[in-house]
């Protein structure tokens, strides 16, 4: 779609064709057709959004698309157009402030992007033109240019590798900036190309740009001296991507195929869809309520105004006549403008500043996650990463956790444990072998010899050594000689020793998947060492210290659908062999069946032990067979269309009729503290689902290992195996099983109380549910719609009653499907996905909160996540401490904001009843404007950044505290109603308290009287002090910042009022507040009424705080005990006890 839109954007008919033709070096060719230089975009990268010219309109347009900003704009416009009580400045200034700050922020970000773009675009690159090397600015590279890149430089555009300084026509590349994989990847030159690029005349035909980094199809036509052009296929291994870096290679030359915004990197640069948090939804709901309050207030006032005016003499008393214009205005128009005026007068009830404060809270608050040193992992030297700050509070609301297994629950750090050859088990005992009485001194090798035939063993080990895509890391010469030293040492000693491992490991292998390395290393232990791949020849050092050479003919790459990979090699003796390794389910059907049974037992046993198993098979290829396969493969690789499918077909055809050699078991160790983390998360009321592509047995064992399943957990299995048990149609059986499980887990179980899986602590029978990919697809896509819905419901209900759910053999898309299903089920629970690999991206994007682990499988998950942490164990603190606190903070922030604006505006509303509904503002314009910006904004911001109602240690120790704020507990309607009533109460107290005082407006001891602005100022003073002190009452954690901000705000208010009233302001038409504040303070009665009203307003609050405590003495007491202990242990001051 992207491509299509891109094409449409760029226009031009030739762009709609599926291929593009590139003339290398812009040469014309002896081709019949006329040479039309096709137009491609230049190599300028534009990641910036704005230019100097369009910044203002574009940015403003985008900002006013936000509903809140638009609302405020409308209010502002109404103020400008209609004669309203408050000047446009009161709402214009805050809006202007907000818009400007946002614009500056976005402008700055864009400037940074411009700068980065410029840096990229203006960097010089060497281009070969007419045989001469010229320097060009990067942005001037055209498609077809031959570009030279030297070591450690990044590629300026997508290039087809033509020439490398290395002899074997390869070059090494890291794509760390593209997908985060820091290993070296090998890329190949186009085979059989002339050394002299000047005389090369060729065209490249390739597909139009597309964002997939790992896909590229193309064809190169090479014209030589009027011969028929030779054709070479081009694949991703020939393509050097912009953004990648050249390594280990002096220089390369390549021809630009995609430039600028058409490079794969640029195409991959796109924003993610925005996720909205539950709190934001609550805010919008509350906003609607307040909007209703606002409108009804305005309606009430308008109606009453006209009722009141109907009485003779009220509308236009002699002392207050209307202007001619007013008299002439149509009655209904007047009503309407009156309504608008009231809206404007009361519009402060929905403050602009709330949005600013919420944004600031989120933005600043998220720093605490990045700053947290507990998230710092010394191994990768990185801490947590926050990609979006919009979801901080969502971390405190998670109900379902979907976790990947490999790399997330487990370390993805593979270790070869054992293998099985022809049904005989070989276990590596490692360093302890000498000490172990049961082991023979020369350990595994001897055992090996005891059991299977030597020939089979060696074949198996050779298979392990050959069937992979591992590279030997080439380091400096010194390191190489060290490696040789090490080999010498091996030569000297008959037995492999653990002590020798480290230097060998230092030599290092590089592979895309860690279990390949584990296998190669495993084979090394048994005496077969892989020495490396040099110009299509694989070298192996065998047990007899001879070097064996194999010519690598083909690699049939691994893919998740086939779940296996193969290599075709030719030995010195001329035999052509195919070695294949893969998952048992993908190998067993392709080997001779009589061999399977012996191995299957081992494989299954290993799987239940939590090991990852792979089966190894081989096959002799006869000359004809090979020739046929070779031709098939070459043909498929040259295909421009459907290359994948064609290759797959050939692969499947070749990988048949193999002989099973054996199986390997590799341990995937659990992540640090995986079990503790899982326990804590379950204790916090979250349900943990494991979604993995792995096989059931392995996944199950991981679940057992990390405590998700326990011994007494009854497992409910819905897998292909259980479905096929009855021998009936799968769907019937599915129905039966689902109903059975439903009866067991849902109907017979006692109703689950709020707080969910805490039930396990009370000795209730708990269930674990296991489902696999194929079964899930039956559940989701049953033949009939009604059945599908029924199954889905049953499935969800069962799952909701299980303590843990395991979904295995999931395709990435299925993972996302499950997340989506849970997300959309009744009650729409908050979901969190955590994963580390590219296969988890879909579920990370789908869930409410996506967490990436900075693991070994590249950076894709991290890039697509909302938050990234180095280890699984960090999830505990992220949710239980940070999430909980963020939620409490922002929930309080939201409630408080609505409250303080309600009691701000209510007196102004009530005043209308006493001023003839004339839209007379109670407060001065300065107060109206500053209330939310200056007087009351900082304390709540500080609160929402620093509050710890329960200290972090205690939150971490008591996971169940998390469930206390579950389900948006602090933003429920009851609480909203409470806050609203509190606001109404305060508003009434403020207004009527002063109203009664003004029964006699002679409030000074000199008998002088106070006027309307004094009235408003007294109300406003009470208001500012009350709402600030109310927050002070709610603050449980007073850092110096809170002190500073709370007392500072009050002091600022007093100072400002003096200042504002102390000067005749020349720009003001009316000097309303001149000395009003000072005069007010000179009146004892005013002081007394202010104190009285503040205390009266806060009295119920204090009472509530005191009386509420006995309800939860347990938690408080516990925390006190706990604090006592911790403070005794370490005299730190962060959690002091206030006694």
């Amino acid at each position, binding site marked *: 779609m992207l491509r299509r839109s891109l094409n449409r954007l760029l226009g031009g008919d030739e762009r709609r064709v599926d291929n593009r033709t590139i003339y290398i070096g812009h040469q014309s060719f002896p081709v019949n057709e006329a040479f039309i230089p096709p137009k491609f975009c230049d190599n300028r990268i534009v990641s910036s959004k704005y230019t100097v010219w369009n910044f203002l309109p574009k940015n403003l347009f985008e900002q006013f698309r936000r509903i809140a900003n638009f609302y405020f704009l409308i209010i502002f416009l109404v103020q400008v157009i209609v004669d309203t009580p408050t000047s446009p400045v009161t709402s214009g200034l805050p809006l202007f402030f907000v818009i400007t700050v946002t614009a500056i922020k976005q402008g700055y970000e864009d400037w940074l992007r411009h700068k980065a773009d410029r840096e990229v675009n203006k960097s010089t690159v060497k281009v070969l033109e007419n045989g001469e090397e010229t320097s060009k600015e990067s942005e001037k590279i055209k498609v077809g240019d031959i570009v030279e890149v030297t070591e450690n430089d990044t590629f300026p555009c997508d290039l087809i590798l033509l020439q490398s300084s290395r002899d074997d026509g390869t070059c090494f590349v890291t794509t760390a900036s593209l997908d985060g994989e820091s290993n070296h990847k090998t890329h190949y030159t186009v085979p059989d190309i002339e050394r002299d690029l000047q005389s090369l005349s060729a065209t490249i035909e390739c597909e139009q740009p597309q964002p997939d980094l790992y896909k590229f199809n193309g064809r190169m036509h090479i014209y030589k001296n009027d011969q028929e052009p030779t054709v070479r296929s081009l694949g991703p291994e020939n393509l050097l991507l912009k953004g990648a870096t050249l390594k280990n290679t002096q220089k390369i030359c390549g021809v630009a195929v995609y430039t600028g915004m058409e490079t794969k990197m640029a195409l991959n640069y796109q924003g993610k869809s925005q996720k909205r948090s539950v709190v934001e939804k609550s805010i919008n709901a509350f906003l609607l309520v307040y909007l209703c309050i606002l409108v009804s207030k305005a309606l009430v006032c308008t109606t009453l105004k006209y009722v009141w005016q109907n009485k003779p003499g009220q509308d236009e008393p002699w002392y207050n006549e209307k202007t001619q214009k007013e008299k002439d205005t149509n009655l209904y128009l007047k009503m309407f403008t009156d309504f608008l005026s009231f809206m404007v007068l009361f519009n402060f009830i929905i403050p602009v500043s709330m949005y600013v404060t919420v944004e600031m809270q989120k933005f600043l608050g998220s720093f605490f996650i990045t700053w947290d040193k507990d998230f710092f992992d010394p191994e990768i030297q990185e801490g947590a990463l926050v990609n979006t700050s919009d979801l901080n509070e969502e971390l405190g609301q998670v109900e379902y956790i979907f976790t990947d297994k490999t790399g997330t629950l487990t370390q993805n750090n593979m270790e070869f444990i054992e293998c099985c050859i022809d049904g005989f088990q070989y276990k590596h005992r490692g360093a302890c072998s000498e000490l172990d009485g049961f082991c023979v001194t020369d350990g595994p090798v001897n055992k090996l010899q005891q059991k299977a035939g030597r020939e089979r063993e060696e074949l198996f080990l050779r298979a392990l050594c050959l069937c992979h895509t591992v590279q030997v890391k080439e380091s400096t010469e010194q390191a190489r000689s060290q490696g040789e030293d090490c080999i010498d040492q091996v030569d000297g000693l008959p037995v492999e020793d653990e002590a020798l491992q480290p230097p060998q490991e230092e030599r290092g292998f590089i592979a895309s998947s860690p279990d390949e390395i584990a296998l190669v290393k495993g084979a090394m232990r048994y005496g077969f060492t892989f020495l490396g791949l040099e110009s299509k020849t694989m070298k192996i050092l065998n047990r007899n210290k001879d070097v064996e050479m194999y010519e690598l003919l083909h690699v049939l790459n691994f893919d998740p659908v086939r779940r296996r990979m193969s290599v075709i090699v030719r030995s010195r003796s001329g035999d052509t062999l195919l070695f294949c390794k893969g998952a048992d389910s993908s190998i067993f059907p392709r080997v001779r069946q009589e061999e399977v049974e012996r191995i299957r037992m081992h494989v299954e046993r290993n799987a239940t032990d939590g090991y990852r198993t792979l089966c190894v098979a081989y096959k002799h290829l006869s000359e004809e067979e090979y020739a046929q396969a070779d031709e098939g493969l070459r043909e498929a690789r040259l295909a421009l269309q459907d290359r994948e499918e064609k290759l797959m077909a050939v692969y499947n055809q070749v990988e048949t009729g193999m002989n099973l050699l054996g199986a390997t078991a590799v341990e995937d160790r659990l992540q640090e503290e995986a079990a503790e983390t899982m326990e804590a998360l379950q204790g916090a009321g979250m349900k943990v689902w494991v979604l993995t592509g792995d096989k059931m047995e392995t996944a199950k064992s991981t679940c057992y290992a990390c405590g998700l399943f326990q011994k007494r957990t009854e497992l409910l299995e819905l897998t292909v195996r259980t479905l096929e048990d009855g021998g009936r149609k799968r769907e019937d059986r599915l129905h039966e099983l689902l109903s059975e499980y439903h009866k067991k887990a849902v109907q017979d179980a006692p109703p689950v109380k709020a707080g969910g899986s805490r039930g396990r602590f009370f000795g209730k029978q708990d269930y674990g549910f296991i489902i696999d990919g194929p079964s899930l697809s039956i559940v989701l896509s049953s033949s009939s719609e009604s059945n599908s819905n029924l199954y889905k419901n049953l499935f969800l209900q069962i799952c909701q009653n299980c303590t843990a759910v395991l979904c295995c053999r999931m395709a990435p898309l299925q993972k996302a499907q499950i997340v989506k299903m849970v997300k959309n089920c009744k009650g729409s629970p908050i979901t969190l996905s955590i994963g580390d690999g590219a296969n988890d991206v879909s579920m990370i994007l789908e869930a409410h909160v996506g967490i990436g682990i900075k693991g070994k499988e590249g950076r894709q998950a991290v890039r697509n996540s909302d938050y990234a942490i180095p280890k699984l164990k960090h999830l505990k603190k992220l949710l239980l401490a940070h999430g909980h606190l963020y939620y409490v903070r922002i929930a309080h922030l939201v409630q408080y904001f609505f409250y303080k604006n309600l009691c701000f505006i209510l007196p102004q509303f009530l005043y209308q009843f006493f001023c003839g509904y004339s839209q007379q503002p109670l407060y001065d314009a300065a107060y109206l404007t500053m209330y939310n910006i200056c007087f009351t904004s900082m304390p709540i911001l500080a609160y929402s950044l620093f509050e710890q109602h329960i200290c972090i240690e205690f939150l971490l120790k008591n996971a169940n505290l998390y469930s206390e704020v579950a389900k948006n507990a602090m933003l429920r309607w009851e609480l909203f109603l409470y806050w609203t009533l509190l606001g109404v109460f305060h508003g009434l107290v403020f207004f009527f308290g002063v109203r009664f005082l003004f029964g006699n407006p002679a*409030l000074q001891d000199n008998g002088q009287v106070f006027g*309307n602005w004094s009235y408003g100022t007294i109300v406003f003073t009470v208001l500012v002090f009350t709402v600030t002190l109310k927050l002070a009452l709610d603050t449980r954690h007073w850092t110096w910042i809170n002190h500073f901000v709370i007392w500072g705000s009050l002091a600022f208010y007093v100072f400002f009022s003096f200042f504002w009233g102390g000067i005749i302001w020349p720009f003001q038409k009316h000097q309303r507040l001149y000395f009003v504040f000072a005069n007010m303070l000179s009146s004892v009665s005013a002081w007394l009424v202010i104190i009285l009203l503040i*205390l009266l307003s806060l009295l119920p609050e204090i009472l509530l705080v005191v009386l509420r405590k006995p309800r939860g003495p347990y938690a408080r007491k516990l925390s006190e005990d706990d604090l006592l202990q911790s403070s005794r242990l370490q005299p730190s001051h962060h959690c*002091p006890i206030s006694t």
Partner: protein
Amino acid sequence: MVKEKKKSPDRPDNTAFTQQRLPAWQPILSAGIVIPGFVLIGLAFIGIGVGLFITSRDIQVLEMDYTGTEASSDCNKCAITNTKNCMCSLDFNISTLFKGPVFFYYGLTNYFQNHRRYGVSRDDSQLYGDLTNFKDPSTDCKPYRVDSNGKPIVPCGAVANSMFNDTFKLYQNVNGQRNLVPFDGKGIAWWTDYNVKFRNPSVEPLKNAFNDTVKPLFWTRAVYELDFSDPSNNGFLNQDFLVWMRRAALPNFRKLYRRITEGDYKEGLPAGNYTLEISYNYPVLRFDGRKKVVFSNVSWMGGKNDFLGIAYLVIGSLCVVMSMVMLIVYAKFKFPEDN
């Protein structure tokens, strides 16, 4: 693998701030603090309340309506006929000494000085003595900006135009003789209004500044002729004008008219019969308003105000009662747990 101990640039700072470990005071409102606190606050409030209540009780107030809607009233003739310079009188009796200094207020009801249209209709620059605004008053003053001939009105606007223009004279009737009670017209307006906020244009004589302007439509005398007896009490600095220009907060209001601080009446109004002579000019019946006069003395808390004293007493006792309730609650539920 040897780990380098070098500090990574990405390593988060280990400061109290970044780790959310700032030293903090965590107040817990425990019974030990709250109950004594409540008792103390309650007692203090009761104390203040008693003081306020007594003070307020001791303030003498004499309030009299002189609207003249009742036929019995002497002012009835002025109220219904609408004649110019109508004079009426109001007789009243003071039984005990009305302690001085006595403050004399006039009051209006159902008069919306706080109406927005009314309140906006003034020109503070003009009142600050800015001569440019004499020639061209602010548009806010509409419809009292210029007269029918297009001449600018000074002072313009509804507030100035509607200035209260009843005048009063108080006589004590001693043995059939009427003794004039001297009124003090100084110090009835805010000091800052008189000295800073309002200014006469610095033109001598003052009258010349008002050339080419007209007086407000409703006025009988121009602003520079408001007080014949005291030339300095004229123009925008006229105290009655200043008092009127400070808008009342509520539709029923009173404004200070005069103080009785001089001569024989310095110590207050002695018991006896008094006559208040009213020059009845200000029409209020058209908008259902009423006019009244108020004699009052003031204390440190200002005029008589029972609300404050009662409110303090009520809330003070509420605090004490609540602390008692809390004490009972805690005695029942909390204390055993502490042990």
